[in-house]
């Protein structure tokens, strides 16, 4: 079995200008920070970016950097308020924004990965979310048809991966396990790469068959430093 571990640049070479990419993480946490920093250096542009929520409050961190660096043409997510650059670019017309309720968004992505056409949700009925959408009535109750969403590339963040691409998550895995199903090419950034068999079958959060490339990120020690610094700066830890 050929190892799926590759260099960050080899993996990111699959991302081209104009592509749609999903990035896992939640306000920076369990986000593939090394891959994002490298993407900023590489400068691929005109991206459609799909994330559950936007950048760590205030920006300047994780996916916020991609937007600040003007690499994103369109953003699909549930919230932009934490990223001043996103709000500014949306206002001035540089950035297109498509909002979905977070629970709808994750189901759209799940549907995309699971071969479903979409889901029927009560969320958003009676709101602007209805615009341009089909509705289905079941037992007298109205639901919105929310269609499946996929990406060209997904970059997810795990804790450990084995060389067959099996991923073990740690803490709050948020959107990562769902996005792993929903892209044509899936890059998993992890802190540790281990041999097949070292992750217990019960602990695999994303089966290796879904992952195309495993890359080492900043590792656990640096991750601890990064968040300690971030949280001290933002007065969350004393």
């Amino acid at each position, binding site marked *: 079995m050929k190892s799926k571990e590759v260099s960050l640049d080899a993996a990111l070479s699959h991302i081209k200008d104009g592509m749609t990419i999903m990035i896992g993480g939640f306000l920076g946490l369990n986000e593939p920070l090394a891959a994002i920093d490298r993407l900023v250096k590489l400068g691929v542009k005109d991206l459609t970016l799909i994330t559950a929520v936007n950048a760590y*409050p205030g920006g300047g961190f994780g996916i916020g950097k991609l937007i600040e660096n003007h690499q994103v043409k369109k953003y699909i997510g549930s*919230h932009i308020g934490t990223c001043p650059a996103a709000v500014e670019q949306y206002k001035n017309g540089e950035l297109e924004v498509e909002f979905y309720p977070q629970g709808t968004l*994750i189901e759209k992505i799940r549907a995309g990965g699971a071969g479903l056409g979409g889901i029927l949700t009560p*969320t958003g009925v009676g709101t602007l979310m209805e615009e341009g959408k089909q509705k289905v009535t079941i037992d007298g109750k109205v639901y919105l048809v929310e269609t499946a969403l996929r990406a060209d590339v997904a970059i997810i963040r795990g804790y450990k991966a084995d060389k067959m691409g099996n991923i073990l998550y740690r803490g709050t895995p948020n959107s990562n396990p769902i996005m792993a199903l929903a892209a044509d090419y899936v890059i998993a950034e992890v802190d540790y790469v281990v041999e097949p068999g070292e992750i217990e079958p019960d602990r695999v959060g994303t089966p290796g068959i879904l992952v195309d490339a495993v890359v080492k990120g900043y590792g656990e020690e640096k991750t601890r430093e990064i968040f300690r610094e971030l949280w001290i700066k933002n007065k969350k*830890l004393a």
Partner: protein
Amino acid sequence: MDARELIARRAAQEFKDGYVVNLGFGIPVLAASYIPEGVEVILQAENGILNFEAVTRLGEEDPYIADAACQPTRILPGGSTFDLAMSFAIIRGGHVDATILGALEVDQEGNIANWALPLSPGKWSPGMGGAMDLLVGAKRVICTLQHTDKKGRSKILKKCTLPLSAAKVVDLIITELAVMEVTPEGLVLKEVAPGVSVDQVKAATEADLIVKGPVPEMRL
């Protein structure tokens, strides 16, 4: 006691023992500080945790665990973490007993607007995050907000003017002036804040307020 503390203290009275609750940022999170003695609640955060508390001391943080505001967080015994699809299955599926959320506007039909302020024509910000799902899915929706805006205009309206987050979902509204319940007949004034008269509440409220007999003082 300032308005925020008053609202948070009153909101905390709505917690029942064993409740699973999801709290919005600001006043709702503050309410957790005033949970009555003998009442234990389980906090749910939409990024995928149950049963947690904030970590504030350096060295105790875990860079793989945070709450829905990405604040350092500790899982309590009996707590769990899970992915976003599971988190919103819990939220939308009616497995959260109550949510307390802030609002920009709320109206007498139980409509609520809390995701969209006009940015430029046809553009709204900041987005709804998990609020729309919480409003539709939680068994009980409690809305906490200041009664009026900075210019003194009522935020308790006959009809919301901003884009809705959800239609006809609010059960209870708590402000620094009053507690109001959304009922099939309309908005019923249930309690007034200490030192506030029914007439003062009425004067500060654009919505039609139903007053049934004497209105008791706010439980705190």
